């Protein structure tokens, strides 16, 4: 058979078309695109289409389930315009030069932010980060099962044999080491190997005697259905869960806890800088912040939204307004590589131990 140049031409043409289509993301009509990467279940998603309409743009909204998995995705070369990670991860991103400063003049709604949640240690002047949600970590418990007197155990409640096989722990390295370190009276930002080893022993001992289940976001559904009596949760998840199941209560152990903050940051890859600022401003608009906070249960740093939500939607649920002031409360700080690896290995062993 002779070669047919015509056929070859068609093949080439089709190939080029396909490639162009793939590269150009077929059907993108030239609108500016904003890529947002945030925690799962962290937004009233109807706001996204509202934003798209108002600014004639397209928002690609992706979600992650841990700061670490977000970082891994960034490391693999994926680019985003806006990220909504937590305190220590923001500190890491700043250190690694992955963010660009916020132009506060483009964020007029920032005036409504609570001064108390600004200027945290991870970004002292809020050069890079705009608070989105904040809260604490505590123990959510079933009042029909847990004896009020036992609450004075603080974090040691998680090792009280009365509640063996009745506990959910958070399936995350830092959130699981935090209760152990606090129970032992150490800082959760410790770099001292001896202290870390003791916390590791604490966790191993808890595993052996209490048989806890390490879970992620499914802790909320499980607690709503009343499957187990105790769970380590974020205050916002507690507020959300308590709204659904009245038997539940939340407390922050006296040994101190983790005060966290998730904030919006703009990456250095971002080209639609103005649009990104518009997005941040849009989210700080009291009405929008209110919609978000009611939808997910986390505490809004926008005073007007927070007050309204606390009075109307979360009345009688103190977890919505966590006390962030305790003496032993801390904010997670960036860990150097060596400490991080040490924690990681121990955490893998805690989970893998049989």
């Amino acid at each position: 058979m002779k070669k047919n140049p015509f056929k070859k031409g068609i093949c080439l043409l089709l190939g080029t078309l396909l490639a162009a289509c793939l590269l150009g993301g077929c059907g993108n009509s030239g609108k500016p695109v904003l890529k947002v990467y945030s925690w799962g279940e962290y937004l009233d998603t109807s706001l996204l289409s509202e934003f798209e309409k108002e600014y004639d743009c397209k928002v690609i909204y992706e979600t992650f389930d841990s700061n670490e998995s977000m970082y891994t995705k960034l490391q693999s070369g994926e680019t985003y315009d806006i990220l909504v990670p937590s305190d220590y991860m923001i500190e890491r991103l700043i250190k690694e030069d992955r963010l660009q400063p916020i132009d506060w003049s483009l964020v007029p709604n920032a005036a409504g932010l609570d001064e108390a949640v600004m200027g945290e240690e991870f970004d002292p002047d809020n050069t890079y980060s705009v608070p989105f949600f904040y809260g604490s970590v505590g123990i959510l418990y079933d009042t029909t099962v847990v004896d009020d007197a036992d609450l004075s155990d603080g974090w040691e409640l998680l090792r009280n044999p009365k509640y063996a096989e009745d506990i959910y722990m958070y399936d995350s390295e830092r959130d699981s080491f935090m209760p152990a370190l606090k129970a032992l009276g150490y800082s959760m930002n410790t770099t001292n190997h001896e202290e870390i080893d003791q916390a590791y022993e604490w966790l191993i001992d808890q595993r052996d005697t209490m048989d806890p289940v390490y879970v992620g976001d499914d802790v909320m559904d499980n607690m709503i259905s009343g499957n187990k009596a105790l769970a380590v949760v974020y205050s916002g998840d507690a507020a959300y869960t308590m709204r659904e199941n009245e038997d539940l209560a939340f407390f922050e152990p006296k040994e101190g806890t983790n005060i966290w903050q998730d904030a919006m940051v703009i990456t250095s890859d971002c080209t639609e800088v103005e649009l990104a600022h518009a997005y941040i401003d849009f989210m700080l608009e009291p009405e929008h912040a209110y919609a978000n906070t009611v939808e997910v249960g986390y505490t809004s740093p926008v005073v007007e939204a927070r007050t309204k939500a606390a009075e109307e939607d979360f009345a009688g649920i103190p977890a919505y307004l966590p006390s962030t002031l305790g003496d032993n409360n801390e904010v997670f700080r960036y860990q150097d590589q060596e400490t991080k690896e040490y924690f990681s290995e121990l955490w893998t062993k805690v989970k893998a131990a049989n």
Partner: protein
Amino acid sequence: MKHFTKLVRPYIIWAVVIILLPLLLIVLYSVTTGGNDLVNIQFTLDNFRRMTEPVYLAVFAKSFRLGLTAVGICLFAGYILAYFITFFSERTQSLLILLVTIPMWINTLLRTYAWICLLSDNGAVNTLLQMLGFQPVTMMYTDFAVLIGLVSDLLPFMVLPIHTSLCKIDHSLHEAAMDLGANKVQTFWRVTFKLSLPGVLNGIIMTFLLSISTFVIPKLLGGGQYMLIGNLIENQFISVGDWNFGSAISVILAFIILLAITGMKQFDQEEGEEE
């Protein structure tokens, strides 16, 4: 016809880019240290050495125990199912096989969540038990939950190859065996089962491959403390960020699977030569 061989070229390029390169990268990661960006790497065998720690060996042992149990249950249930399907008319058979594959049309994640609804402490099964006057049983986050999830996920992969093998058996062989004085049990073991062995082996290989490297099902039905090899690897890549160690585990797992398959194939060939 010769020029048709050129048509294979795009496939070769595709295979190199999508399969070979990532594999080589995994091997490279597994024998180096120095971070995930491969800028300043040093060659080392530490990643493999770490695997010999008892904690990780226990994870391997647990994965194999669970994987083999799942394969065993699949084989038992799948063989019976495939065997009885062959008794129907051809038309009914294709319908029944279609029914076997229907669960595969639905996403694994969704099916696993359905199991959560059924098995959780206040779920459908326990509600039913309580209505019948029994004590509720904790099923979520146990071996039982993971096994039931795995088996229901893998069963079609066992049924299909066995059914194909069974279908190919010439019925006159059964008649011949009967005529020569074999009873039903003898006929089954010495004729039917023997001739269906290729399908059985294929089914075992498929289900074993899938069960040994699974991570979604144990994570959802077993909880975060339910660590199998797949979870260990996922953990190293996603949350810990130690791609070197994760790659080393992957390489070891791939090696073991390769050995297992070679062993199976060898067995299959020997069986074939016997006849």
